[in-house]
């Protein structure tokens, strides 16, 4: 059942992105940046956590969860250190994603040759 909802919710989020590309004629870069902002906005209202509880990876794999994790780390750190903590905690939860993107992106670019 978890797999079913991950598939449906994850797919539905991608359909929203596809419609933004086709109907509003946005570039993929504009779609992903909008989605990150939307994810942070949904987390500001506490909505995104419920979506993760419901859909699992269907909500954590789309890029919207990046915005959600940024705000989540910021708020967790703000509880400890006050408003200075917002800047300290922003990349706390997303560091795995960013550091692995840097590491693997770099290694792949070193090892492989560009195609076409």
């Amino acid at each position, binding site marked *: 059942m978890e797999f079913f909802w991950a598939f449906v919710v994850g797919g539905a989020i991608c359909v929203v*992105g596809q419609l933004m590309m086709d109907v509003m004629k946005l570039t993929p870069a504009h779609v992903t940046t909008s989605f990150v902002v939307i994810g*942070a906005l949904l987390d500001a209202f506490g909505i995104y956590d419920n979506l993760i509880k419901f859909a*699992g990876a269907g909500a954590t*794999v789309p890029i919207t*969860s990046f915005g959600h994790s940024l705000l989540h780390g910021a*708020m967790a750190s703000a509880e400890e250190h006050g408003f200075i903590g917002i800047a300290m905690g922003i990349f706390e939860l997303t560091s795995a994603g960013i550091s692995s993107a840097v590491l*693997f992106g770099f290694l792949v670019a070193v090892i492989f040759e*560009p195609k076409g």
Partner: protein
Amino acid sequence: MATKEEQQAYAEKIKSIQPKPPYVLNCLKAFFIGGIICTIGQAIQMFYMTYFNFTQETAGNPTVATLILIAALLTGLGVYDKIGQFAGAGSVVPVTGFANAVTSAALEHKSEGLVLGVATNLFKLAGAVIVFGAVSAYVFGMIRYIFQHLT
């Protein structure tokens, strides 16, 4: 140079001639591929929860890292771009699209060297996501913090 009015008139004029994208078909493809990527993510997440004692909340991090590794490799092999041509947003919206943007930008500039080519261009496309994400998280975080302490 064409004036702004002329540019707008031209954009209006070519709008009627531009081919309409097959909306429904594109959405189905995006739904299907995006759904499959999330289902794979769910499987990886359950693997980490079962064998490495991650909880539902903490399993997201290693899952995302694993998906980024897979997507970076597929980009290096030239497979991800083929998936992308078919899936449209289905391959852009998941975090694998972020890894693809990082890796392909780095690969593209490999001929310019490791420092000025690969390293400087790593975040050429994906940097926008981090910038907008961090700025919006900071702004929303401030607003939420102020609200929490007013009430």
